[in-house]
Every structure is written in structure tokens, then in C-alpha cells.
């Protein structure tokens, strides 16, 4: 491009009508590299001076060339400052890039450490799960009876309760004792604090006696089956068991050492 401008200036200065753009070619655009751009400017100025000499030889006014020269100098200075500014900026950017790279390396190292920890935890979890699964299987199959067998015993209990209640009722009906003459013919709904079945029997109604005795026997059976211990020391264990069944602080978890 420089060769082309030079040829044009020389060519036009020798006789043809030269335009200002031909005489003073525009400053080249920055290439993005500050040192290269500065070198380009210096070459441009030298060529402008050469062109000025040729212009004078060709009859171009001297004042116009001086203005151009000042303009070129000002632009050169401005571009020098711009180059310096870009250099500084490049330095800062390089520093930031180095810093970011260092930070990324640190994070990569931490991620690697976390992955290692996760791997160890997963291995430990797998080992504990397998151990617990085996224990669970052992513990959950310790029932000595099936549900069907338990229900069979409960039905037998109900049958015995019924038999006792019926036998007592039959014997009671054959009694010729007074049977609470003072409490006869009481409206069952008039005394809500006394169970209905009791009031029925008081009214000499035998249909209420069997369910009444059954209810009494059922209640006693429930008491016997639900008692956790039969002395004061043993009864203390029941709240401990209730707490244990909901607290979740069990030995397998605690002994895991996780």
C-alpha cells in the first residue's frame, strides 16, 4: 500500500492534478500490535516528509504541508499514548489471567479431594448397607410364630371367654337369690354413668349378662397381654422401650463411626 501511494504521489507530482488524499495518504489503521503500529507511523511520517519535498518541488504551498506535519505529529503522539495504554492494559489482563488460572487450579485440586472423599463415603455406605441388610434379614425373621398362628390363639382365647361367660349366665339364670330387688326396673338410659349392660342385668334381663361378662373378661385379658412387666422394676422398662422404638439412636448407626 505504501508503495502504491508513493507511486501515485510521484506520478501525480510530475504533471497530473493530485488530490490531497493522493499527496498525503491517510494514516494506516492500527494493526492491533502497538509496536507494529508505531513503526508504521514512523514510516508514514518519513514518507510524508519525502512527499512534502516532492510537493514543494511540484509547487504545493508550504503552509499546507506544515499543517499536515503538525497533524501527523499529533496523531503520532496520540497513538504512542494509545499504544502505551494498550500495553498497560495487556499487562493487567495477563496478571488477571494468571490469577484466574491459579484459582482454577486450586479449585480443581479441591474438587479432586472432594471426589476422593465422596468415593470413600460411598464405599463406606455400601459396606454398612450390606452389613445392615444382613442384620435386618436376621432380625426380622426371628418371629417364632406366624400371624396366622397368633390369630388362632386369639380366637381360642375369645372362644374360652365366650364359654365362661355363657356358663356363668346359665348358672346365674338358675339362681333363686334376691337379685337386687331394690334396683329393678331402672331405665338403662337414665343412668349414663353406669354401663348399659349392667343396667340391663339389674332389670333382670339375662341377655345383657353374657356380653357384660365377656367384656369384663376381654378387658382383663387385654391387661394381661399388654403388661410389660409384672413388678415395679420391670414396669420401668416399658417407657424405655417406647422411647427406643421412636428415638432412632440405635447401636448399628452409632457404631458405624461414619
Amino acid at each position, binding site marked *: 500500500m505504501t508503495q502504491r501511494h508513493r507511486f501515485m504521489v510521484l506520478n501525480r507530482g510530475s504533471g497530473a492534478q493530485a488530490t490531497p488524499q493522493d499527496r498525503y495518504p491517510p494514516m494506516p489503521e492500527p494493526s492491533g500490535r502497538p509496536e507494529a503500529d508505531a513503526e508504521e507511523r514512523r514510516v508514514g511520517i518519513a514518507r510524508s516528509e519525502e512527499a512534502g519535498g516532492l510537493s514543494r518541488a511540484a509547487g504545493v504551498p508550504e503552509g499546507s504541508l506544515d499543517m499536515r506535519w503538525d497533524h501527523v505529529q499529533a496523531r503520532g503522539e496520540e497513538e504512542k499514548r494509545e499504544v502505551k495504554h494498550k500495553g498497560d492494559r495487556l499487562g493487567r489482563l495477563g496478571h488477571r489471567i494468571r490469577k484466574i488460572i491459579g484459582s482454577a487450579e486450586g479449585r480443581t485440586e479441591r474438587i479432586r479431594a472432594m471426589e476422593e472423599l465422596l468415593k470413600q463415603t460411598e464405599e463406606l455406605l455400601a459396606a454398612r448397607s450390606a452389613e445392615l441388610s444382613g442384620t435386618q434379614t436376621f432380625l426380622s425373621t426371628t418371629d417364632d410364630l406366624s400371624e396366622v398362628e397368633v390369630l388362632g390363639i386369639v380366637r381360642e382365647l375369645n372362644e374360652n371367654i365366650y364359654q365362661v361367660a355363657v356358663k356363668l349366665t346359665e348358672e*346365674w339364670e338358675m339362681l333363686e337369690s334376691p337379685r337386687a330387688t331394690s334396683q329393678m326396673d331402672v331405665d338403662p338410659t337414665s343412668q349414663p354413668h353406669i354401663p348399659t349392660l349392667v343396667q340391663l342385668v339389674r332389670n333382670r334381663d339375662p341377655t345383657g349378662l353374657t356380653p357384660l361378662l365377656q367384656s369384663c373378661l376381654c378387658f382383663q385379658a387385654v391387661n394381661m397381654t399388654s403388661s410389660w412387666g409384672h413388678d415395679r422394676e420391670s414396669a420401668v422398662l416399658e417407657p424405655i422401650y417406647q422411647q427406643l422404638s421412636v428415638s432412632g439412636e440405635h447401636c448399628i448407626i452409632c457404631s458405624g463411626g461414619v
Partner: protein
Amino acid sequence: MSIVSSALAAFNSHVVEGQAISARWRSLTRRYLPRPPPHSALLAERLADVLNETGSFSSAQQSLEFVQATALEGIGSIIRLSLRLEFIFKVEVASSDMSVLFEAPGVVFDDAKMTNDFGPISGPTTEGLYRIAGTTEVGVGKSVCGGLGGIRRAEILLKTKVVLEKDVVPCGK
């Protein structure tokens, strides 16, 4: 939350061992407790008290003698079976907490837990309006505790059989 905490949380949410551990503790502890005293006399006294309350006898001693003379053998069977069930529930069954169910007089009838001794309730839906006069047959329920804050799941294996007040109160009263 750290990795260890999250791993533990995942671990706890997937493994429900509360029932097995607590039931195992219950079984081992209960197995070596002192054996219960005989209940025959106590149960006969309770029956005598009930009969005495109905005004059937002139004295408590008379009603007790009546019970002992009539049903002592049957009472022994009831006690034997009850204690057998107690041992089963406390020692021999570890996969769940089983219990015998009983409904107190005056409780509102609940079809989910009870059956009517006099047959199913017919007519318009009046669930919740009937009250229980007494329990004639005990039921059986079981629950499994989740442990570690888990939910206790309850299930009824045998419904309690009850007598409703409407079936025993004479009409017009």
C-alpha cells in the same frame, strides 16, 4: 450440608431398622424378666365384682363363691392363653409390635376397627351414631415403628367384636 451429612441422611432415609432393633431389645429384655404371678384369684374377683354390681347377689363373698364354683377352670384357660399371647407379643414376635384390641363401653362404633356381634349394620348410613355397650371378642393389631423419625404403620389383623347399645336396650326405653 457436608457430603458426610448428606450421605448419612440418604442412608437413614433408605434403611428402616428401628423395628428390628427395638423389638430385639424388647424380646431379649422381656425374656429374662420374672414370671408373672397367677391371676386366677384376681380374675375371679373381678367377675364377682361385676356380678355383685348387677345386684345378683346379696354379698361380694357370695358372688365370688359363685364364680369360683362355676368357672374356675375356664378362667384358668383364659389366663393361660392371655399369658401365652403376652409372651408371644413381647418375646417371640420381633417383626412388629402386636397387641390385643379392646373397646371400652360408650365408644362410638367404627367400622374400620370393629364388627357388630349382631351382624352388619343395615339401613341408612349412620356411622358414628352408634355407641358400644361392650366388647365380646378381642381383636388383634400390629404396628411397625419406622425408627429414626420414621412413621409408625398400624394395621388391624382381627377386628374387635362389639355389642351396640341399640341392640341391647329394649325398645321403648
